């Protein structure tokens, strides 16, 4: 028997403009330290074969239509931006070429989009962010005697490191589970950054791969349109000195 699938949608013949994705002054992989300095995830051939029209539209919108702040107050937004800039630093990029992170967290909270679950010992995401940001700044004042925004990058990193490892005075956090808040924040930062074509390019991820797909699946084999590593850079040492890197599993996870 012939299976009837729902009718195909009409896709306009005119495709989205590839040049609109050229958001950086260098090809996407040009971040210092990237093994793929010349990889362009939206190069002409890739745009034609690896980016179907609906994915093009989605990613162009993500790159260009960065939402305005609607949930956070201006002071909260400034604090969150400063925190995101340390959790995922982009000092190597011109300010106008950095991947926006905090606006996407704001949008998610404004629209009330969640992950589909809330830990019983955590308030809902909106309240968690309001209280978490305030507690983080209170901790800065207690430990460094200055608001987070007044600290140097080194001081900010040191403070975030203590918070990430749970070395905080719990009273300042007024019952908010610090580890869960940090995990929530990191997940949101990662979801925003690694959804951006600049991030895909610097790690050599092929991007949408649709409709072309892949032909060379064997270990070490590369399709001609995939990222080619030119400056290998091993993460072995990073793993060895990471908090959870040696024995593994001694980091509290939830």
């Amino acid at each position, binding site marked *: *028997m*012939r*299976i*009837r*699938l*729902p009718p*195909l949608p009409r896709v306009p013949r005119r495709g989205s403009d590839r040049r609109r994705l050229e958001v950086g002054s260098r090809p996407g992989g040009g971040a210092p*330290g*990237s093994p793929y300095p010349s990889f362009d995830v939206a190069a002409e051939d890739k745009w034609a074969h690896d980016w*179907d029209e609906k*994915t093009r539209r*989605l*990613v162009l919108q*993500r790159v260009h239509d960065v939402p305005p702040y609607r949930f956070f107050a201006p002071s909260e937004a400034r604090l969150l931006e400063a925190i995101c800039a340390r959790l*995922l*630093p982009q000092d190597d990029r011109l300010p106008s070429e950095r991947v926006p992170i905090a606006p996407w967290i704001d949008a998610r909270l404004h629209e009330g*989009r*969640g*992950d*589909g*679950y*809330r*830990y*019983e010992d955590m308030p809902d995401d909106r309240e968690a962010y309001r209280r978490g940001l305030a507690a983080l700044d209170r901790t800065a004042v207690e430990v460094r005697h200055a608001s987070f925004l007044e600290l140097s990058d080194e001081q900010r*990193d040191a403070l975030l490191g203590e918070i990430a490892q749970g070395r905080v005075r719990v009273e300042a956090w007024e019952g908010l589970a610090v580890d869960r808040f940090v*995990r929530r924040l*990191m*997940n949101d930062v*990662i979801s925003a*950054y*690694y*959804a951006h074509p600049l991030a895909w390019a*610097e*790690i*050599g*991820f*092929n991007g*949408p*791969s*649709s*409709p*072309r*797909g*892949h032909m060379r*699946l064997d*270990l*070490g084999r590369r399709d001609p349109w995939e990222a080619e*590593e030119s400056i290998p850079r*091993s*993460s*072995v040492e*990073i793993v060895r000195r*990471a*908090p*959870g*890197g040696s024995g*593994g*599993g001694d*980091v509290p*996870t939830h």
Partner: protein
Amino acid sequence: MDGQRNVPRRHTPADVLIIGAGAAGGVLAKELAEAGFTVVVLEAGPHWVPERDFVSDERGAEQLYWTDPRVTTGRDPIELGANVTGKGVGGSTVHYSMVALRMHESDFMVGTLGGVAHDWPIRYEDLEPYYERVETELGISGPVRWPWSPHRRGPYPYREHPLNSVAQLFARGCDRLGIRWAPAPIATISARKGDRPPCVYRGFCIYGCSTNAKSSTLVTYIPRAIAAGAEIRAECMATRVNVGPDGRARSVTYLRRLADGHVVEEEQAAELVILSCYSVETPRLLLASAQRGHPDGLANSSGLVGKGLMVHSANIVHGRFPEIVYQYKGPPTLALTQDFYETDDRNDYVRGFTIEPIGPFPIAFAKQVASGLGLWGRELRELMFDYNHYAALGLVGECLPDDENTVTLDPDEKDDHGLAVARVTFGWGENDRRLFRAGADREREILEAAGAEVTWEAEDTSHLMGACRMGDDATTSVVDQWCRTWDVPNLFVCDGSVFVTSSASNPSLTIQAIAARTADYIVNRARTGEFTRRAAGAA
């Protein structure tokens, strides 16, 4: 809920009303519609058109998950959402990893063999013909030779897929350690099937397949159900099963989301009601349907609705290799081993696990870097530069049932419709912990044998099973071996919630085999006159 609602619209009664168009609901709808029943399926999410709706983007896949609020708690609260749920026609089969395993003979007899859980009321032999039928319908691509239990009577319908780089590393590690491995049987076609083309190895399988090579129920069973006359009613969230004075299920009340965003209440009557909403929403609906004569929820005279929830331990070990891997290519799991599946007296735990290669995309991988290694900042970004040199193995670790692990109605929190949200309580048992520690050790050994320079681990869980278990006795189970509730004769529960034990296999194929068996039972009972069929030409 506002007070302006009019009397709910009532639809023409159906023979069969199925709640949930996922793994089980799709099978039931097709089998029963083809047998001549009038079938209506209510699905809370949208009716996807893959070519239109499925973008090739990790974050864009968020639309596929059940993200209505739930509360997670217990000693080891589990992640819900993307991890284990689907919302929309096809359910989570539109984003599952497609691994299509039969459970072992021993899985149905965990009580007899080890005394640590109840036996199932059925044996492997009872499901075998239905496994075969579902494998054929989906077009499972698998190996010619299957090294483990259960013995197969014939080959898989479609040829196995080639191994991708991660599977090749896994095979290399296994070979060096003397561990048997096999290409994974998966619900993705390796050659054309009807209108569906073979897989092109894009790698976006778990974010929605836009080429229809993936055998989700959305593109297999559901179109056949529609062709046989079933109505799939999308954007309809069931809120209550109504029972008549005769003690039989009469109808289901539901909320339909209209195109303009408004929500209206409607009611669908049926001769027979089947809940296929999976291990959280099925018990939630039964509990929310408490009514006269059923004060503790429907089908709950045993008190077991919502009890015995299980998940699989899914600990992930990542290894860094000197070779470039490109872990994003092809279906994520193309090989596996079940050499550690059965109870072994040398272990300090009972039961076992399956090990499967996986290929996390950048967002998922970075989250595991953050949770597993505790990295953030410059070091996180630098480690990510090395993404293409990693390969990962994931666990499907058996979890013993524990009636303290539950789905209940949250006493305080309500969703947008004013309905109590599900509250999911979970904690590992001592056996579970020993088992997943051993599993992660094995994963590490395999990666190291394959040549990994360094390894690290991230904890995870996957799949839901149980919470309305089947059994031989109305006092110790919610449904009988045919998935019929003991308390309400024309109400069935047919999905992963009927699992008695979790097994160490990905559950979808077993869920679908159980659904095919239940459909056969209903057809046979209708022949005896117990259930009526309105449709013309009914046998």
